[in-house]
C-alpha cells in the first residue's frame, strides 16, 4: 500500500491561504523590511516627513503588512462560503429563520 500520496487537490474555487506559500513569503519580506536591523546603530538622519528614515520605512512596512493581511483575508480565503451561502438561501426558502 503506497502511503506517499500527494496533498488532495482543492475543489475549484476553493482558496486557503496556507496553500499559497508565496503569500507568507511576501508577509515575511514585508516584516523583515520594517525590522531596523539593516542600518548602523544610532543613525537618525535623514529625516523623512519629520521622522528618521529608518522609522519611516518601518511605518510604511507596517501599513503594507496590515493591507496585505487584510487583502489575504478578503481575497485569498474561500473554503466554506459558497456552501454556507447556498445553505442559508435554502433555509430562507424554507422559511427557517434560525
Amino acid at each position, binding site marked *: 500500500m503506497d502511503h506517499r500520496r500527494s496533498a488532495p487537490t482543492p475543489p475549484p474555487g476553493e482558496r486557503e491561504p496556507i496553500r499559497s506559500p508565496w503569500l507568507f513569503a511576501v508577509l515575511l519580506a514585508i516584516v523583515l523590511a520594517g*525590522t*531596523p536591523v539593516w542600518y548602523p546603530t544610532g543613525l*537618525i538622519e535623514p529625516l523623512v516627513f519629520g521622522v528618521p528614515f529608518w522609522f519611516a520605512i*518601518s511605518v510604511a512596512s*507596517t501599513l503594507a503588512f496590515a*493591507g496585505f*493581511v487584510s487583502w489575504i*483575508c478578503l481575497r485569498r480565503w474561500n473554503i466554506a462560503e459558497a456552501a454556507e451561502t447556498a445553505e442559508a438561501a435554502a433555509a430562507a426558502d424554507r422559511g427557517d429563520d434560525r
Partner: protein
Amino acid sequence: MNDLIFAGPSGIAILCAYAVVMLLIGWYAGRSGNTGTARGYFTAGGGLGMVTLFFTLYATQYSGNSVVGYPPQAYREGFLWWQSVPFMIAVIAVYLLFAPRLYVLAKQKGFVTPTDFVRDRFGSTRLSLLTIALMLWGLGNYVLEQLVAMGHGIAGLTGETIPYEIGVIGFIVVMLAYSWTGGMRAIAMTDVMQGTAMLVGIGALLAGAVYLTGGLGTLTTYLADTSPELVGVPETADAVNWFAMIVMIGFGAAVYPHAIQRVYSARSERTLKRSLAFMAWMPLVTTGVVFVVGIAGIQLFPGLDTAASEQLVGLIANEVAATNVLFYLLMILLFGGIVCAIVSTADSAVLAFSSVVSSDLYGRYIAPGASDRRKVVVGKLVGVAMVFGLLAIAWNPPGTLFSIFVLKFELIVQLAPVFILGLYWKRMTAGPTFWGMLVGALVAGGATLIGWGPFYGVPAGLVGLAANVTIVVIGSLLLTRDGVRDDVPATR
C-alpha cells in the same frame, strides 16, 4: 497615579453607568440565546455575526495593558516600541495559517474547546492533558494581569476615591454576573460596548497628549536633541528582539484558547474573514496611537524612572483634565475606556478557563456522563472560584505590567505547533508532539525563571519553540518512516 484631580464622583458615575449597561446587555443576551448547552454557552452556538465577532476579537485582543502598560513602554524605549504595531498585526497573519481550516472543522465536529481539536486529531490523553495545563496556566496569568491592571486603573484614576479592593471586586461581580447569565453571547455583546468605549478612550488620550505638547511636529527634533538613543536606529540585539517579538506574540496570541474559541463562535466563514480583515488595521488605531502618546510623554514628563513612568497615563490624564471642562469629560471617557478594556479581556479569558475545566477536565475525566447543563454549571462555578483565587495574588502584583505579559507568552506559544502543524501535516504524531511541547515549555519557563535570556534579542519562548518544533518534526519523521499513518484522522 498620584493625587489625581479629576476622577472622584465623576469617575464613580461613569463606572456605575458602564456597569449598568453591561448588566443589561448580559441580561438581554441570557434571555435571547441558548445558554443551556456547552456549545451554546461557551461559543454562542457558533452564531456570532460580523459586528459582534469583530468587536469581541478586538476587545479581547487589546487588554488594559495595551492602554495603561504600552505608553510607559514607548516612553522608556522610544521609537523601538513601534514594534507593538506589527506584532499585533502578526496575530492576524498567524490566524491565516490555521483559522480557515479550523473554522470548517469546528463547524463539522461541533468543537467547544481548543482541546477538542487536539483530542480529535491525535487521540492522546497525555497530549490533551499537557495542552490543557499550558492553556490553564496561560489563561490564569492573563486574568491575573487584568486584575492587577484593574487595580492600577480604578484606584489610580479615581485618586483612591474608589479603593483598589472595592473597585476590583465591584467590577468582578458585574463581569461574573453578565458572563453567568449569557456566556459567550453576553461577553461578545458587551464587547461591542466595551470596544467602542475603549476606542473613544484611546482617542481622548491622544487628543489630550496632542493638546499638551502643542502638536507632534517638532517632537522628533526635540528627542534627537535631548534623547537621541530613543529615536536613533536601535542596537542590533534590540532590532533582533523586534522581529522575535513579532514572531512570538503573533504565534502566542493567535493560539490563546479564547482566541481559538472566537474562531469557533463565528456564524459563517464570511463573518470570520471580514472581521479579521478589519482587525488587521486595528493595531494602527490602538497600539499605534498609544505609542504616539508614550512618545509625547517623553517631552511632557522628562526624566521619569521605570516605576514613575508606569504612571504615565495617569499623569497625562491628570494634566489634561485640569485644563477645561471638555478635556475633563474626555478624560472621564478615557477612564471608562481603560476599565472596559480590562473587563472585556478578563471576561473572555475567564470563560475560556471555565470551558476548559468543565468540558475537558470535568466532563471528560471526572464525570464523563455529566449532562451538558451540568458541565455549564460547573464551568460557571469554576470561573467564580478562579477569579477570587487569583484576586489573592493580585493584591500584591509582581513586577511591571509588561513583565507579566511576556512571561505568559513564553509558555503559551508552545501550543502553536499542535494547532498549526497538526492541521496540515499528516505525519505528525502524538508522542513527539507531547515531548516537543513539554521540552519547549520547560526550556522557555525554566530560562525565564532563572533569568536566562533573551539570547541576543531572542526571547526564551522562541528558543523553546525552536526545540519544540525540532522534536516534533524529527520525532514524527522517524516514527512514520514508512509514510503517512493511516490511524491519523484526516483534517480535510
